[in-house]
């Protein structure tokens, strides 16, 4: 096998063909295994689109309705598949429209390659038509970026882009290619990038640190694991499960870690953070050893750092050295890939059950259930709740659906109540909180995993930020199930206005259009639900539909999401009402 690969490489290296830069770009993408890319054509990228036309049997270009949609679709594609998502745009406004998605991918560590056209190199810096310094603009929000002005530089730049985007802690990269570089011909050959000399993507795991961690864990009476997306990115789900089961450690997740361990697992104690579950938040300040795995102690997770887990020894399993001690001072930092580190950790752990400690989680869950959860998913009041919609989706999807959310109240409710049986099933904008993320991300997810049920859940606010992507759903025949939980408010901001601004609802009330008519305008089957008895049949009809389906659920206007850690408060000061 290995010999074969080497031989293939040698033959490839020898074989060169004289082709244009633009054809080279498409050939590079094919070499990298790209089957789908998302984008929008325009002047400075037209030569590449001309080649995409010729290669359409090998690579499928999805025309989104806005470049931002292209990035979010590429992100959805990447998050569900683990592969690199690709977005393409022209220079100037095309390129700047990518920025929100790039920033989102950067903060949520999503592998994405963006390719932008640029004005011809002799016009650079002349304020030419649709010229913008996209390399300068994208620098703070990319893992790496570069500008290519010669056709011959294209293969190396794209190879490097894919390698950097995917390796280590993943992230977005941008390659800006001038139009003359796209037109010029050169002798093409392609070799994948396997290393960059200044770049060490995965620090080697230090076994001594793993031993130190194991010692602390074995001595712990009240250990708590908080895992993040690192577990999913390194595909360490089985390893994590083995660790928590062997050592009997209650394990909680950050919003991006959701679905790595099934919701129903007895040691899965729920979500941490601002709207996370009661028990893991309270008990963060009671545990004696806090084991963080592939997470970065975001402020939405920790609340006030001055009062965060001060009593605990902190162990941090982390691939990115810059995250160690950034927010929370660690006692033992285990650098490296989560999968490798957890594999090394497992045999060093003692069997344990921590039954009394686990009981504390159960007791606190009961309090949360009685005060919050029961009313959310089995409401007795007249108005529909977001929680009961999630419950119906769980029933109809059997917890197998990938849930793609937007940002706001519905997002928190979805993450709290969705049943996740399969990893990579929660696709959401965690770090950046990008309203408008959900719908285009769901398109990317569905196209990357057509065999999976993909449910997009949005609020009435965020939905309208990228609503035009219904056109993409229609054109691509992407069977996305689109749910809008409509409360005629920007609900999360309204909640804050209610709690912290004496109910002064400044610019949060939305006068909404006829969403069903809009969906139907795009020839998408659509239904609106306003009463409880209509909900279950409507969700059933949606989930059984073979095509895209739009469901608007009119929910209670002024419901709040609880529990809640007020901004700047301690995790143990989490409020239930």
């Amino acid at each position, binding site marked *: 096998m290995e010999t074969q690969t080497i031989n293939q490489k040698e033959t490839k290296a020898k074989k060169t063909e004289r082709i244009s830069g633009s054809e080279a770009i498409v050939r590079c993408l094919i070499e990298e295994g790209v089957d789908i890319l998302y984008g929008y054509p325009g002047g400075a990228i037209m030569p590449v689109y001309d080649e995409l036309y010729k290669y359409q049997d090998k690579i499928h270009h999805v025309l989104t309705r806005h470049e931002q949609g292209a990035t979010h679709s590429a992100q959805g594609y990447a998050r569900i598949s683990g592969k690199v998502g690709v977005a393409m745009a022209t220079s100037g406004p095309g390129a700047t429209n990518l920025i929100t998605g790039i920033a989102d991918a950067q903060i949520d560590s999503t592998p994405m390659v963006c390719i932008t056209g640029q004005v011809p190199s002799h016009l650079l810096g002349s304020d030419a038509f649709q010229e913008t310094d996209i390399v*300068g603009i994208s*620098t*703070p929000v990319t893992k790496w*970026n570069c*500008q290519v002005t010669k056709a011959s530089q294209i293969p190396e730049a794209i190879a490097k882009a894919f390698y950097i985007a995917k390796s280590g802690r993943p992230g977005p990269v941008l390659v800006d290619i001038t139009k003359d570089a796209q037109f010029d011909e050169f002798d093409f050959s392609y070799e994948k990038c396997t290393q960059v*000399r200044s770049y060490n993507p995965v620090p080697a795991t230090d076994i001594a640190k793993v031993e130190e961690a194991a010692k602390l864990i074995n001595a712990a009476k009240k250990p708590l694991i908080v895992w993040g997306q690192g577990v999913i990115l390194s595909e360490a789900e089985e390893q994590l499960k083995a660790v928590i089961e062997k050592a009997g450690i209650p394990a909680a997740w950050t919003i991006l870690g959701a679905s790595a361990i099934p919701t129903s697992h007895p040691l899965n104690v729920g979500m941490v953070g601002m709207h996370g579950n009661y028990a893991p938040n309270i008990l963060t300040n009671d545990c004696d050893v806090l084991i963080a795995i592939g997470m970065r102690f975001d402020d939405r997770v920790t609340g006030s750092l001055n009062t965060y887990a001060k009593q605990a020894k902190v162990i941090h399993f982390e691939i990115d050295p810059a995250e160690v001690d*950034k927010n929370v001072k660690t006692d033992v930092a285990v650098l490296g890939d989560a999968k490798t580190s957890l594999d090394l950790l497992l045999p060093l752990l003692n069997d344990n059950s921590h039954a009394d400690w686990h009981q504390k989680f159960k007791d606190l869950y009961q309090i949360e259930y009685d005060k919050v959860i029961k009313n959310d998913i089995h409401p007795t009041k007249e108005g529909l709740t977001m929680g009961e919609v999630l419950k119906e989706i769980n029933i109809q999807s059997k917890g197998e659906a990938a849930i793609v959310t937007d940002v706001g109240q519905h997002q928190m409710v979805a993450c709290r109540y969705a049943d996740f049986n399969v990893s990579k099933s929660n696709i959401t904008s965690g770090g950046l909180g990008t309203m408008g993320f959900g719908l285009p991300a769901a398109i990317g997810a569905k196209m990357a995993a057509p065999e999976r049920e993909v449910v997009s859940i949005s609020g009435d606010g965020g939905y309208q930020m990228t609503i035009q992507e219904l056109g993409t759903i229609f054109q691509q025949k992407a069977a996305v199930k689109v749910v809008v939980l409509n409360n005629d408010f920007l609900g999360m901001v309204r909640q804050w206005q209610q709690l912290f601004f004496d109910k002064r609802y400044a610019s949060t009330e939305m006068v909404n259009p006829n969403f069903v008519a809009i969906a139907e305008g795009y020839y998408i089957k659509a239904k609106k639900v306003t009463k409880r008895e209509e909900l279950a049949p409507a969700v059933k009809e949606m989930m059984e539909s073979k095509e895209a389906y739009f469901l608007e659920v009119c929910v209670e206007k002024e419901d709040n999401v609880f529990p809640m850690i007020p901004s700047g408060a301690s995790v143990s000061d989490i409020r239930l009402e």
Partner: protein
Amino acid sequence: MSAEEKQLYSVSIYTENNIGLLNRISAIFQRRHINIESLNTSPSEIEGVSKFTIVVNMNEVNIKKIIGQIEKQVEVIKAYYHSLDDIIYQIAGLFKIKSELLFEERQIQNIIKESNARIVTVNKEFFVLEKSGKKEEIVALYNKLSPFGIMQYTRSGLIAVTKEEMKISSLLQTYNN
């Protein structure tokens, strides 16, 4: 000096020689609202490897975090931070002064001699003095000369070598293997 107390640090960054890297590095400081006191870029002892020397006034807790963020950049090979006591450094100052003052104000000649400054060029209108050393020495010279009138004054960024070894070559080798 406690880890919370601010002091001047010299940050040495070994990087690939690529366009845009300065932007990427300076953005790390800008984002955290940290003023760069001085900045110098030059080739390093290794062919094809550039070196940034950046001086900032920060505490040690935060400079460590900054180093992490800098090293995270793909094209940064390695970054170090040192207090000014741990490096041998020089700053250059240039002073442009009216030539007539050399004759009218005899004291200037003494100042030049005492300060070990060097006259780089002289013409009818002006002469240029160069003084290398620590910042305080250059400022002291400035203070002595300024009563006579200085036409132009400029001070370079700090450049430094460290007392301890910086193992860049061996590090590059381990990455490559």
